């Protein structure tokens, strides 16, 4: 079956530009997570949705980062006025239920490079 997909796979932005990263979770999955993975590091939690509700956004590094999941399926992570330190791989994961310790299934990520 189809796994988690993310688009675009690669994004190059000039500093100051806004970007939008898309995540298509596994169909029917209730929970959706965003992570940021810097080069040579493990992923870091950004935010969590249960259906359309954003229940935890404590990992978002600044108010330039915004995530939404309006219909409880596809999610978009938006970064406004990108900075060089935003360069990273952004990973999306989904899990079947609203129980936080379900297995998370990760997408391939979007590699963002800010010049």
């Amino acid at each position, binding site marked *: 079956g189809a796994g*988690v997909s993310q688009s675009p796979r690669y994004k190059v932005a000039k500093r100051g530009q806004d970007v939008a990263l898309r995540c298509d979770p596994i169909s029917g999955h209730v*929970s959706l*997570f965003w*992570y940021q993975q810097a080069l*040579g*590091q*493990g*992923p*870091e*939690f950004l935010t*969590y949705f249960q259906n359309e509700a954003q*229940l*935890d956004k*404590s*990992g978002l590094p600044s108010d330039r980062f915004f995530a939404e999941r309006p219909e409880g399926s596809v999610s978009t992570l938006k970064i406004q006025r990108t900075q060089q330190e935003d360069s990273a791989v952004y*990973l999306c*994961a989904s899990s079947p239920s609203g129980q*936080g*310790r379900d*297995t*998370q299934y*990760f*997408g*391939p*990520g979007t590699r963002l490079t800010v010049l």
Partner: protein
Amino acid sequence: TQLLEQSPQFLSIQEGENLTVYCNSSSVFSSLQWYRQEPGEGPVLLVTVVTGGEVKKLKRLTFQFGDARKDSSLHITAAQPGDTGLYLCAGFFSGSARQLTFGSGTQLTVLP
């Protein structure tokens, strides 16, 4: 900030050798997971351990959870080139129901 420390950061070995990767924290995990990540892909779950002292085996991989649930290890027997990848431990700390905290990873290279 709750941290997970992994060691070693890099490991390069010959095919057939054994290796162990360690994951440590000063905080207690309610559960701990090990993932493997290949270039251009997301992490893939290998195992979840929940009980202190638990040992799980997955073919040539053996995972151990410390008695106090603050540490874990991954042991690979007779490593093969196909084992090459980034190994990540990740844990749910007690009191954190949904935030999965990852270690910084161990980059393993198995040379033929």
